[in-house]
């Protein structure tokens, strides 16, 4: 009965969301009563969808195959963690997770939004409810996860083996939290447009939500990249696959939004642009989630798509996004422009940041959609592959990286660029020195490597320069500097950490691309091969049973020049229920570098082994983690803490 109660809970949540939408938009001017109703409704939606989700998890855990979703995607022999993650390893279940996160954000707005003006709160919650109603309705009517089978089969069809990985337990929830988090920005933007009220306070309410969503999206993309890296066995960490692009585009837009919201909060400028970005970011999130499901894009992420479902989802997207932009076109001109500033100023730098992020976003968008358009219009089948993205993206990002360290050091309104440049001389010199040194030592195999290194170091050191500058390190006694450093606002730390993380990621990308070495060779047990100073000895090959698969495992003994011997065991698995083979690469980390070993299918008793040595590859993800950490630090900033600002501000800062 839990299944049916879960079903009922989801339907009840849909009903509350529908009525909240209607009531919110009709009566948002009518004061506190509406806001209280919507707040309570948002909390109830969360509780009910959480109950529905729990019912699904329960059915998967006890292998209740009378639930069609469990019968199609689970297997009684699957380990518990994969039974749970299997709930969202499919279209219907992932929709429920998506809606769950949506209502969680709605409930958070309701809980922390007590300080918001009532009309704004009502409009924000009404918009959140509209999204909930649209997507829970879509879930219930076209892809109901609570569909039953009677009689129930005795065994499930099992989950796609590629998805039977801890990555599935982590990646989608993180990514969805990122995508869906931007719904709050979207709702705030719509509310601002409807009410016509937008000011610096608005930006201060929106910024923490942007930061929160951006933080999770960063983690989600990094996690997804690492997952693809170790699970797909192709040795790459980014493929410019349409789905990867679909998650990357909202990240670019979200990063721009993060920065433009600062300008709006501090200087009350860039209002219209910030609203526009908020709408764009969430629209791209929606496209990211649903383009792949509409069947327009095919990729490894595609769930079985059905044409009706695709049409419904496209119409929902068209109405939501189109409606938001129509509203924007109608109301944005009424918004008043804010404070003025000189081109050389913090505002100017942030505009530059937005400009380059937006053009990079445009390039990715064009590259992703161009094949679709060409196919639809001219009937030509082409693919826009990694070379296009690598070329355009790196050229568009390079100037951004060049100017990035200047930004945080510039003053608002009008700044002295010469003075700032002087402060950055040390960082620049150090970056040039290191880039030259490493290029000389490492041998330059890719001509762009020194430039890439230079940019990476420049961004990383430039980020630290602000901290050094503000703590007067070297000019004051060490203890005094440390005290100043500790006393810096969290937002300054967040800026430095985030930019430093970006530099680290750039360094990882450049180092891996330039100095990666690869080996493909026939290797049989008893033989050994060498790669990048490591001796890879194939010890034995054996069959090993797993819980719901059988594996062929190769055992390799890897000896580095100055390192203890390590054992690597890549596998090839055949999953019992589906008969699908998968490759499990073995990855060993040496410092920041990794050795990646993949075992081919044996033919006539001979084995092919593919090995990569990827220098400093982990920096890519470490940098992303640092960026996410920066988001977390920024959220702990007193002035930005969700819900706290108004009260705190009133308490700690004397009014007049």
């Amino acid at each position: 009965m839990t299944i049916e109660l879960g079903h009922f809970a989801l339907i009840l949540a849909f009903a509350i969301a529908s009525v909240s939408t209607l009531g919110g938009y009709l009566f948002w001017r009518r004061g506190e009563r509406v806001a209280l109703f919507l707040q309570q409704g948002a909390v109830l939606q969360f509780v009910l969808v959480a109950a529905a989700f729990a019912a699904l998890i329960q059915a998967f855990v006890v292998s209740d195959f009378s639930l069609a979703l469990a019968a199609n995607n689970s297997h009684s022999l699957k380990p518990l963690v994969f039974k749970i993650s299997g709930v969202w390893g499919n279209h219907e279940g992932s929709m429920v997770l998506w809606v769950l996160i949506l209502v969680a954000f709605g409930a958070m707005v309701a809980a922390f939004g007590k300080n918001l003006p009532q009309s704004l709160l009502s409009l924000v919650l009404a918009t959140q409810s509209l999204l909930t109603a649209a997507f829970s309705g879509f879930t219930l009517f076209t892809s109901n996860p609570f569909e039953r089978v009677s009689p129930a089969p005795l065994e499930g069809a099992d989950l796609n083996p590629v998805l039977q990985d801890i990555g599935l337990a982590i990646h989608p929830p993180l990514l969805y939290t990122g995508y869906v988090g931007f719904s709050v920005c979207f709702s705030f933007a719509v509310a601002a447009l409807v009410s016509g009220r937008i000011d610096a306070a608005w930006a201060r309410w929106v910024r923490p939500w942007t930061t929160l969503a951006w933080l999770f999206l960063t983690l989600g993309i990094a996690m997804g990249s690492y997952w693809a890296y170790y699970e797909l066995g192709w040795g790459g960490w980014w493929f410019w696959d349409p789905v990867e692009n679909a998650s990357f585009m909202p990240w670019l837009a979200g990063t721009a939004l993060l920065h433009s919201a600062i300008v709006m909060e501090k200087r009350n400028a860039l209002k219209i642009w910030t609203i526009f970005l908020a709408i764009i970011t969430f629209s791209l999130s929606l496209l990211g989630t649903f383009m792949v499901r509409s069947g327009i894009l095919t990729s490894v992420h595609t769930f079985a798509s059905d044409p009706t479902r695709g049409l419904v989802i496209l119409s929902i997207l068209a109405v939501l996004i189109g409606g938001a932009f129509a509203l924007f076109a109608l109301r944005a001109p009424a918004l008043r422009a804010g404070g003025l500033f000189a081109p050389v100023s913090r505002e100017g730098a942030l505009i530059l940041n937005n400009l380059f992020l937006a053009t990079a976003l445009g390039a990715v968008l064009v590259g992703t959609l161009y094949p679709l358009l060409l196919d639809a219009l001219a009937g030509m089948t082409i693919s826009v592959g990694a070379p296009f993205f690598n070329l355009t993206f790196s050229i568009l990002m390079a100037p951004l990286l060049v100017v990035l360290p200047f930004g945080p050091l510039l003053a608002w309104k009008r700044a002295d660029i010469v003075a700032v440049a002087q402060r950055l001389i040390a960082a620049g010199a150090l970056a040039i020195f290191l880039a030259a040194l490493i290029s000389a030592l490492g041998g330059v195999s890719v001509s762009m490597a020194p430039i890439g290194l230079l940019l990476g170091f420049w961004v990383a050191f430039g980020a630290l320069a602000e901290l050094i500058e503000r703590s007067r390190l070297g000019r004051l006694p060490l203890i005094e500097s440390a005290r100043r450093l500790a006393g810096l606002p969290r937002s300054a730390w967040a800026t430095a950490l985030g930019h430093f993380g970006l530099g680290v990621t750039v360094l990882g990308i450049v180092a891996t691309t330039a100095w990666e070495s690869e080996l493909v060779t026939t290797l049989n047990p008893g033989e050994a091969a060498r790669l990048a100073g490591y001796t890879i000895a194939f010890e034995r090959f054996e069959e090993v049973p797993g819980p719901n698969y059988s594996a062929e495992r190769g055992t390799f003994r890897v000896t580095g020049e100055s390192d203890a011997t390590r054992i690597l065991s890549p596998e090839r698995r055949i999953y019992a229920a589906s008969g699908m083979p998968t490759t499990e690469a073995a990855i060993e980390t040496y410092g920041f570098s990794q050795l990646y070993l993949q075992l081919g299918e044996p033919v006539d008793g001979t084995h092919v082994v593919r090995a990569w040595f990827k220098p400093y590859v982990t920096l890519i993800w470490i940098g992303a983690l640092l960026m996410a950490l920066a988001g977390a630090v920024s959220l702990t900033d007193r002035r930005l803490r969700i819900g706290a600002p108004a009260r705190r501000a009133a308490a700690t800062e004397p009014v007049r």
Partner: protein
Amino acid sequence: MSSQGLPAKRGWSRKQKRLAMILGLGLVLALAATLVLVALRDQIVFFYTPADILERQVEPGLPIRLGGLVKEGSWTRQGERNTFIVTDGGAEIAATYSGILPDLFREGQGVVAEGSLLPDGSFAATNVLAKHDETYIPKEVAEALKARGEWRPDEPLPAEQ
């Protein structure tokens, strides 16, 4: 609302400043657009079936994607070097690939290979795509095969047992 309170370093008026800024932004955007268009022209990869390649006489060395079915009984492996024949029911192209083929590379299954033609008319693959789902058929392959009447969506692939 005006900048008169600020010491004006340059003698530009508000309008001029704004114009300069808009011009600057426009310039960057124009450059970016040019870059994207040029890159699109140079970097896109055309998708061909074996028949297309024979018909259009694709130049050797040009990066292309070749899609079709792996011909039954055509896959051989010597060490890490694989050779197989890609067919679309009519035309056939011999392909070579060094490395580990994807898990779902099977004779009779759809395949998309990235690479270029060699002067002898065979295809040297640098990358072979076969996605991780046994029901997955690369869209381009499905469409090309449909166009040639080789594949109907509700039936298994003709070459499959």
